[in-house]
C-alpha cells in the first residue's frame, strides 16, 4: 500500500490525546454517571439481540424457501384461518394455504427488495454526495436543489403518486424507494465529504493533479464508508416499512407473489377472530425492523463512544 492510501484512513478520528484535550476544553466531566461507562453492558445486549434477530431474518430470506414444507401457492388445507398444528406450524391463511411456507417466501421478497433499494439509495446518494464536492459550484448547487426537492416529498407520497401514474410493479417500487431515500443519503455523505475535502491530503492530491473520480474513490470514500454503511442500515429499515406499508395498502407487491405486507393484507379479514395468519406476518415485519434498528443503533453508539 502506498503512503497516500495509508494516510487518509487515520486522519478523521482524533487520537485519544487530542480527544481528551478537546473534552477538557468543553468543561471536564466528573466520573459519576459517565454515560459511556454505565451503558456498556446494555450496548452489548442490544447489539446481540439486534444481531441475532436481524441475522436470523437474513438467513431465512436466503435459505428459508428451501425448507418451506409446502409450495407457497398450494392449497393444502380445508380449514381457513387455521391455528397452529403439527402439519401447519403457523396455521393456514384465508384460502387454506400453509402460512409458514408463505412467510418464508414473503420474507425473501421483503428483505430482498429492501436490500436492493437500500443499496441503490446509498450508492446514488453517497456517489453524488462525494462527486458534487468536486464539481463546479453551480453544478453542485443544482444537484443539491434537486435532492432538496425530492427530500421534501414524504416517501409514502412519492410511492403513492408513482403507483397512481404507472401502476405498481417491483421495479417501480424500488425506483420510488430510491427516489425517496437517496436524498437523505446524499445529504449526509455530502456534508461528510465537504468536511473531508478541505483536509490537507485531499488538497495534496488535487495539487498532484489527480482526477475527480480518483480523489472521490481513493481519498474521500474510505474515510466515510463506515458512516455511509450505518446510514444504509437505517435506510433499510425505512424501506422495509415503506414497501410493506405499500403492500399492506394493496399497492405494493402483487399476487401471486407476496411479501410480508401483502400477507397481512390478504388475511386482515381474519383479524376479528384473532387469526394467526394476520398476526404472524405482522410480527415478522416488526421483529425484522426492530432487530435491524437495535443493531444499527448499538453500532453507531459504540462508534460514538470510541470517538470520545
Amino acid at each position, binding site marked *: 500500500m502506498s503512503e497516500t492510501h495509508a494516510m487518509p484512513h487515520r486522519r478523521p478520528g482524533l487520537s485519544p490525546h487530542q480527544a481528551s484535550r478537546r473534552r477538557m476544553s468543553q*468543561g471536564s466531566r466528573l466520573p459519576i454517571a459517565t454515560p459511556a461507562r454505565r451503558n456498556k453492558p446494555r450496548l452489548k445486549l442490544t447489539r446481540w439481540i439486534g444481531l441475532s434477530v436481524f441475522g436470523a431474518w437474513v438467513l431465512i430470506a436466503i435459505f428459508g424457501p428451501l425448507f418451506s414444507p409446502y409450495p407457497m401457492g398450494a392449497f393444502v388445507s380445508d380449514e381457513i384461518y387455521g391455528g397452529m398444528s403439527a402439519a401447519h406450524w403457523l396455521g393456514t391463511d384465508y384460502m387454506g394455504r400453509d402460512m409458514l411456507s408463505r412467510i418464508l417466501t414473503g420474507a425473501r421478497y421483503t428483505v430482498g427488495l429492501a436490500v436492493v433499494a437500500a443499496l441503490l439509495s446509498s450508492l446514488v446518494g453517497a456517489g453524488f454526495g462525494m462527486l458534487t464536492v468536486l464539481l463546479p459550484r453551480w453544478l453542485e448547487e443544482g444537484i443539491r436543489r434537486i435532492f432538496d426537492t425530492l427530500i*421534501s416529498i414524504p416517501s*409514502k407520497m412519492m410511492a403513492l403518486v408513482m403507483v*397512481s*401514474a404507472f401502476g405498481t410493479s417491483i421495479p417501480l417500487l424500488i425506483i420510488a424507494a430510491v427516489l425517496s431515500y437517496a436524498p437523505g443519503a446524499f445529504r449526509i455523505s455530502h456534508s461528510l465529504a465537504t468536511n473531508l475535502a478541505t483536509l490537507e491530503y485531499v488538497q495534496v492530491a488535487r495539487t498532484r493533479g489527480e482526477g475527480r473520480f480518483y480523489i472521490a474513490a481513493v481519498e474521500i470514500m474510505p474515510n466515510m464508508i463506515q458512516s455511509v454503511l450505518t446510514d444504509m442500515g437505517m435506510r433499510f429499515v425505512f424501506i422495509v416499512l415503506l414497501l410493506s406499508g405499500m403492500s399492506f395498502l394493496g399497492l405494493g407487491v402483487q399476487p401471486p407473489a407476496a411479501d410480508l405486507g401483502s400477507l397481512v393484507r390478504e388475511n386482515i379479514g381474519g*383479524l*376479528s377472530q384473532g387469526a394467526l395468519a394476520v398476526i404472524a406476518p*405482522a410480527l415478522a415485519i416488526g421483529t425484522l425492523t426492530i432487530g435491524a434498528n*437495535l443493531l444499527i*443503533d448499538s453500532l453507531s453508539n459504540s462508534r460514538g463512544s470510541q470517538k470520545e
Partner: protein
Amino acid sequence: MRNTMPKLVLGRLSSSLLTLFLVSLVIFAITSLLPGDTAQQILGQFATPEQVAALRVELGLDQPALLRYWHWLSGFATGDLGMSASNGMAVSQLMNDRLPNSLLLAAITTAISVPVALLMGLVAAMRRGGNVDRVLNIVTLSMVAVPEFLVATIAVLIFAVHLGWLPALSYVSTVDNLGDFVRIYAMPVLTLCCVLIAQMARMTRAALIDQLDSAYIEMARLKGVPPMRRVLRHALPNAVGPIANAVALSLSYLLGGVIIVETIFNYPGIASLMVDAVSNRDLALVQACAMLFCGAYLILVMVADLCAILSNPRLRNR
C-alpha cells in the same frame, strides 16, 4: 441585530415556497408523463380511438404540458382542482368533506402525544444511564421501527377481540355522546401515538442531554443546585427551541402514519381518500392530495427550522 430576524424568517419562508413550487413540478411531471393514459383509463380498454381523442380534448389533455401545468397550478388559487375521474365529483368538494376528519384525528393525536413524549424525554434525560432510561431507550427504539399495522393489529386483538370493548376495524359514523367518540377514536389515535411518542421522546431526550452536557449545568451542579431545579430552571429554558424543533419534525411523521391508520380502521379522512384514488388511478385527486400532504410536510419542517433558528443566537446571526 434586531432586523436580521424578520429577514431570516422571510428568507426561510420564500425558500419553502420555492421548494413547494419545485415539488409541484415533480408531482405534475410524474403524473403527466403518460398524457394519453388518463383518457384511455377513464373510458376503459374497449373505447374507440375517436372517443379517447374526444375525451382528451374535453380534459384538455391535447394542450401542451406546460399549459396544463399552469392551469393545474392556478387551480390551487381558485379552488378549482378539476374533476375526480372515478365518481365525477369536484376534487375540491371531495377533499373538503374529508379534511376536517383528518385534522381532528391529527389534533387529538398531537394533544395526547406531545405531553406524554415530553415527560418521557424529560425523565429519560434526568435519569440518564439509569434503569428507567435504559428501558425507555429500548422501548422507544423498538417502537420507532414498528410498522403501524402491527400496532393496529395488536390493539384490535387486545381491545376488540379479547376484551370486546371496542368495535374491530369498523367506523361508526354517528357520534351521539362521549362514549361513541372515544370508541371511534381510541384505536386510531392509540396506533398513531405509539410511533409518534417514541420518536418525539427520543428527540426530546437528545435535545435536553445536549444542554445537560454543557458547562453551565456543570457549574450549577458544582454550586450545589439540586437536580430537579438544574433541569427545570437551567436546562429546560435553553432546550425549548431544540425541543420545539423535535416536536415539529416528529409531527411530520403523522403524514405517513395516517395513511395506514385511516385505511386499516376505515376512517373517512383525506389519506384514505387518497389511497382509494391511487387504487382507481384517479390522477386529479391524487395530485391534489399529494400537494396537500407535501404542503403540510413543508410547513412542519419550516416551523421546525424556525424554532431552531430563533432559539439559537448563533444560528440567528449567521
